[in-house]
């Protein structure tokens, strides 16, 4: 099918974007890379009246360090974040998550912020954002507010973005060089969308785990921090008993649903398997 008719605006600055959004309110839809939005429009599952493209807002195309945060602007393509030495050095967890997103041809155009705003339950980046304690920068004509990832992702395809607001950037916690991190997922036959997965990072001092951030995707209606599993690890030696405890905690704190790709029990089992593989840094997917 072809998209329904819409009117098109392509502002050249963030100021102009938020003015356009203020003018059109609920009728307006931001278009960045379009790799999630355009398929929905082709299927007419999305029918925005006004499409506001940010592709000419070159001021939003930046990756930079600001104090203890890595900041990625709304026009940064996934492929550019994936290959950025700054991202690889400061947020290796994000650099490990990005190759799992979509496929090369969609990463060439899709943006980091766009994937976060889309909030697909099977998407890797919301989980990476939770594990990296990300903050979304939401800009509107009224100004700017910053929302932590755990408040931003509300439910399947639902975030706390209000009409008139645009995700202008996302900030991530810089990882300590001694931290370890992993992203593990399973998909059916290399299909673009995974069945489920985990994104995690942890730190140890003198063999004792001092910090753990674990998030899962595909095992609920929205990406989820696994705080019980984190608690099972912190203070432990991340040995077999601690990993088993974290795996058990992870399985009990997720509430997956079944579909044609995998049933709920499989997904519950999977989250534990992937967490264990991540913690052991096994090279299996």
């Amino acid at each position, binding site marked *: 099918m*072809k998209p329904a008719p819409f*009117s098109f605006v*392509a502002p050249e600055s963030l100021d102009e974007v938020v003015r356009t959004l203020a003018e059109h309110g609920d009728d307006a839809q931001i278009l960045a890379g379009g790799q999630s939005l355009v398929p929905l429009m082709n299927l007419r599952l999305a029918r925005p009246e006004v499409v506001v493209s940010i592709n000419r807002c070159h001021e939003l195309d930046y990756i930079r360090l600001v104090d203890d945060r890595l900041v990625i602007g709304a026009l940064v393509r996934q492929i550019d974040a994936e290959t950025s030495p700054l991202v690889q050095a400061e947020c290796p967890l994000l650099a490990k998550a990005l190759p799992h997103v979509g496929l090369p041809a969609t990463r*060439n155009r899709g943006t980091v912020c766009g994937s976060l705003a889309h909030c697909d339950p099977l998407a890797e980046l919301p989980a990476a954002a939770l594990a990296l304690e990300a903050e979304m920068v939401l800009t509107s004509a009224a100004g700017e507010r910053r929302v932590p990832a755990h408040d931003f992702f509300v439910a399947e395809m639902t975030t706390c973005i209000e009409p008139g607001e645009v995700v202008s950037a996302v900030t991530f916690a810089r990882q300590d060089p001694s931290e370890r991190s992993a992203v593990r997922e399973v998909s059916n036959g290399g299909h673009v969308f995974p069945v489920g997965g985990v994104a995690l990072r942890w730190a140890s001092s003198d063999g004792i785990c001092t910090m753990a951030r674990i998030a899962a995707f595909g095992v609920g209606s929205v990406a989820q921090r696994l705080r019980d599993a984190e608690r099972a690890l912190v203070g432990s030696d991340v040995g077999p008993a601690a990993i088993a405890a974290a795996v058990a905690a992870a399985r009990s704190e997720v509430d997956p649903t079944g579909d044609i790709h995998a049933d709920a029990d499989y997904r519950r089992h999977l989250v534990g398997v992937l967490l264990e593989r991540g913690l052991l840094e096994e090279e299996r997917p």
Partner: protein
Amino acid sequence: MTDEVEVTVTVNGRTRQSRVEPRRLLVDYLRHDLGLTGAHIGCEQGVCGACTVLLDGRTARSCLHFAVTVDGSDIRTVEDLADFDELHPIQEMFHQKHALQCGFCTPGFLLTAVELLERTADPDEAAIREALMNNVCRCTGYANIVDAVAEAAVELRRRSSA
């Protein structure tokens, strides 16, 4: 509300200027407005890869872009690969290795292979399969396509060292 918008793009080295409806997909713009029917429409949701083009040097699904959003871009389609009567080495190897039957998916595979071989001169079989994983072919079973890309890599290396 849905007034036509002016778009200027460079397609296969030639500057093209048109007025299009905002909802005009890039693939429809190429096929219907420019008459370049090499990019094929399969799934219209980015899954099959038949509409793949090179957008500013990188593969892109032309069904997942509006012509208006790629204003100012440089686009390369399969029509640009052959040099008059001489096939591009990747096309030549697809021919020799019998890497196509119906040919519907072929333009997308060719351009995906172009991107791969521009980045990696000597990909192993796993790298070739990974690069081609998101293009769908219902005829060949892929083995001959993988062979063709591997042979094309050899030929391109031979030419660049010649």
